């Protein structure tokens, strides 16, 4: 009898190993509930998988398409894109979020500008993006808040559940000022995500932004991530940025000189550099 159990256990172990999908192994020490045992192991550090195809079996994520804005909003959006291009061409890039030390918010933080860390704990999945110390919490198996009760923020209120090997997440409550790719949205915008492993070391996040007030159709794009074994997420405090907004052009300028030194005041282009002792 015990020999049969051992045989079955060995067979199951071999099958599990051959699946090779990076599933969480049963771990009695951690007291993992049986229902969670086969969920993908997302805990750990990740890099975005977009600029190079490191694993020939998994294509890199496609570029994010433009937002399918309704004509009334699209014109303004296109004008804004054009203005940004022209400002760059003049050498006076527009002053905006990052230079103001503002974080991405959702969904932009999931582009993983810098490495990100995923933590799976009972009832919650936490995602930490190194850039701007961004943190989002996905509460598992909870009902989403009515929009009216979701306090608007950068990352909103996220709930999720597992559908087989896929983590399904819904997010509401994104501030209207928090715009991905400059796309305007209503307070009713919903962000739906489906996260699943594509291989032992790569997972994807299929994102769908729904906002019938602003979009003609859902805005779909996918980001992919590759494991970054052993990587320790760095702290990121946006401090002492020497970029500032030029009051005349509205563009970004860079302060010359360390703060608190004689040459730290922004000087007009024609002014000579401060003499040094």
């Amino acid at each position, binding site marked *: 009898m015990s020999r049969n159990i051992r045989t079955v256990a060995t067979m199951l172990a071999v099958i599990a190993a051959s699946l090779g999908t990076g599933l969480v192994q049963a771990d009695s020490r951690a007291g993992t509930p049986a229902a969670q045992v086969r969920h993908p192991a997302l805990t750990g550090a990740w890099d975005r998988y977009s600029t*190079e195809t490191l694993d020939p079996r998994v294509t890199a994520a496609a570029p994010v398409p433009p937002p399918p804005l309704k004509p009334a909003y699209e014109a303004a959006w296109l004008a804004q894109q054009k203005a940004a291009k022209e400002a760059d061409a003049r050498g006076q890039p527009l002053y905006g979020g990052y230079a103001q030390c503002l974080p991405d918010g959702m969904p932009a933080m999931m582009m993983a500008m810098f490495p990100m860390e995923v933590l799976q704990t009972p009832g919650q999945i936490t995602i930490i993006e190194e850039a701007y110390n961004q943190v989002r919490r996905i509460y598992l198996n909870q009902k989403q808040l009515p929009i009216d009760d979701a306090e608007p923020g950068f990352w909103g209120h996220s709930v999720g559940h597992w559908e087989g090997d896929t983590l399904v997440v819904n997010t509401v409550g994104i501030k209207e000022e928090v715009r991905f790719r400059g796309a305007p949205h209503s307070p009713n915008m919903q962000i739906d995500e489906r996260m699943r492993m594509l291989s032992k070391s790569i997972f994807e996040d299929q994102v769908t932004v729904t906002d019938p007030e602003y979009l003609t159709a859902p805005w779909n794009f996918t980001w992919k991530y590759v494991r970054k074994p052993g990587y320790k997420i760095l702290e990121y405090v946006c401090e002492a940025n020497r970029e500032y907004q030029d009051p005349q052009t509205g563009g970004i300028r860079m302060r010359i000189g360390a703060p608190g030194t004689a040459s730290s005041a922004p000087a007009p282009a024609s002014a000579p550099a401060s003499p040094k002792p």
Partner: protein
Amino acid sequence: MSNFLSRAARLAMTGLLLTGTSMSAQAHHSFAMFDHDHQIKISGTVTHFQWTNPHVYIDLDVPTDQGDLKHYTIECANPGILDRIGWKFNMIKVGDKITTIIAPLRTGEPGGLLKQVTLADGRKFENGGPAGKANIQ
């Protein structure tokens, strides 16, 4: 043959994947303030080294032909990008004599975006993928 090549390529790719080669991060904003086509090389003495987000800065006193000093501020990537390409928070110190290649500010002010730095001990470092490479020596 092509089969062999593709297998070799795949092995190489897997090798890269296993060593955890870092993927280059995209620029977090435009670098249009800087003139990347007319890079200059400047050497001087470090007066300040600021290891902060969103940018690291090097302040440099550069001797001029007239015998005085011109003060430059050089913008670098952020600590994370630099850490991942081998920089260390304390590898540049006040008083160090360094040489830099920069894309100067288009305004004509004495500043620029770092392309390459050569430390006093001869070690050279770039400024990470988004900032781009030096096009002069």
